[in-house]
């Protein structure tokens, strides 16, 4: 049987939507579902810890990616302190706002600015 006669075929084939509208709709729909934080490989975790430790000792800027709804957040700034027991870091952002604590389990990526 033809596609037009089954499922949603009739409406799929006659729908009129601008590509930009379509894109925006897909994004809108994606914001409706809750995202799951990615599982981080132990090696990647080690690498992130190394990048952050280096940034702390060299006072060099890094960019970290935080898992957040609806989309990930990227921050560039300095690691001021690492609190291993509480699993968090003291973060000084480039945006001029005061330093803040960021939980390690929120961080899904860390890259040294010098390596970009």
């Amino acid at each position, binding site marked *: 049987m033809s596609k037009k*006669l089954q499922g*949603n075929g*009739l409406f799929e084939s006659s729908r009129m*939507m*601008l590509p930009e*509208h379509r894109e925006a*709709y*897909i994004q809108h*729909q994606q914001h409706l579902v809750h995202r799951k934080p990615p599982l981080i490989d132990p090696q990647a975790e080690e690498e992130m810890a190394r990048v952050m430790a280096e940034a702390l000792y060299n006072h060099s800027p890094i960019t970290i990616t935080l898992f957040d709804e609806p989309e990930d957040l990227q921050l560039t700034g300095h690691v001021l302190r690492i609190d291993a027991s509480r699993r968090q870091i003291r973060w000084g952002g480039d945006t001029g706002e005061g330093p803040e604590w960021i939980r390690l389990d929120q961080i899904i990526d860390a890259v040294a600015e010098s390596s970009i």
Partner: protein
Amino acid sequence: MAKSKKRVIMLADCQSFYASVEKAAHPEYEGKPLVVSGDPARRSGIILAACPLAKKYGVTTAERLGDALRKCPHLVVVRPRMAEYIRVSLHITDILQSFTDLVEPYSIDEQHLDVTGSLALFGNPVEIARRIQHRVLYETGVYVRVGISDCKVLSKIACDIYAKKNKDGIYTLEREELAETLWEKPVHEMFMVGSRMTRHLYKMGIHTIGDLARTPLPRLTDRWGVNGEVLWRIARGIDSSPVTPHSQLQQQKGVGHQMTLPRDYTDWKEIQAVLLELCEQVGRRCREKGLMGCVVSVGCQGADYDRPTGFSRQMKLADPTNITDEIYGAACLLFRRHWNNLPVRRVGVSLSDLSPDSLVQLTLFGDRDRKRDLERATDGIKRKFGETAILRASSLQDSGQAQERSLRIGGHYK
């Protein structure tokens, strides 16, 4: 199979959508006839939407601005803002989604919703329709008309033929009463029947929707095949299509861009510039979505649509890619091979056979890492500062379209 419960399906249609959005944004135009027109500076521009007041003067959509101004000299003419209309359309989607999760856009100003499961929460269908009308009007200034029935086709018809014309803007089309209501209506008012189809149906002696419904199916399928059956089913209200937010809208088979050129391009150099711009857009959209493709298609058309020239060809790449240069390389190869040097008015490039770009096969040749880094940087700049913040030098040539294109959506101004 257990007899399933009757569904309650609605179609919410926005009245003069673009014009209503503009009127809500410009309270000073209240009570004045307003149209949204392609390019107000050019009288040959086309009316995209006319408010009900303008329609009273006989202004219709798709007519020329010059003709409309003759009918109504004090017409307020507004330039379209497509991005804003998309935003408002999604705002309405959002409102509808507060009544049910089953919402499906059909076009920028029409959306289907299935409220079967929401009746216990929000009251009977007409009540729900009224609440939708109130909320959309209050939050966006747009008046929606709602057609209600038990399937998508009938809800669309309920809206087009009845709800758009009555006082409340709400109409329920009952399946049991089709013979007395819908079947009395002339066939040209039916969904999916255009002017040409109307003429064919008249010749067959089919004048009302009832005539069509009572025509033996083979008479229609012999003549039009599947489309004949589609029409017959619509007339009888036979439609099992679900209202689904996970429609094909969300699956992406390919990423493509095309553009109509401002004049005929005959020089390979000129075509190269726009080809690169298209590849850049295709590549960038793939990169943004985290996709790669390994089939590149290129097409072009000549200016004379009555005597079509041009081609549409595709080729498979050795490795999936989303790197602009690689797409461009393939596009150029295809163009050189198949283009017959006749003038070109429309060009398109697309990338298909998509896969996620999280896994990449390492290649021995070519410096893909460098290119990828470069594009990550240029994409970032564009995202932050706008489409034209960084451009290829070739786009600055007279033949380049990137700057003009960045101002538009669907050929109209953003």
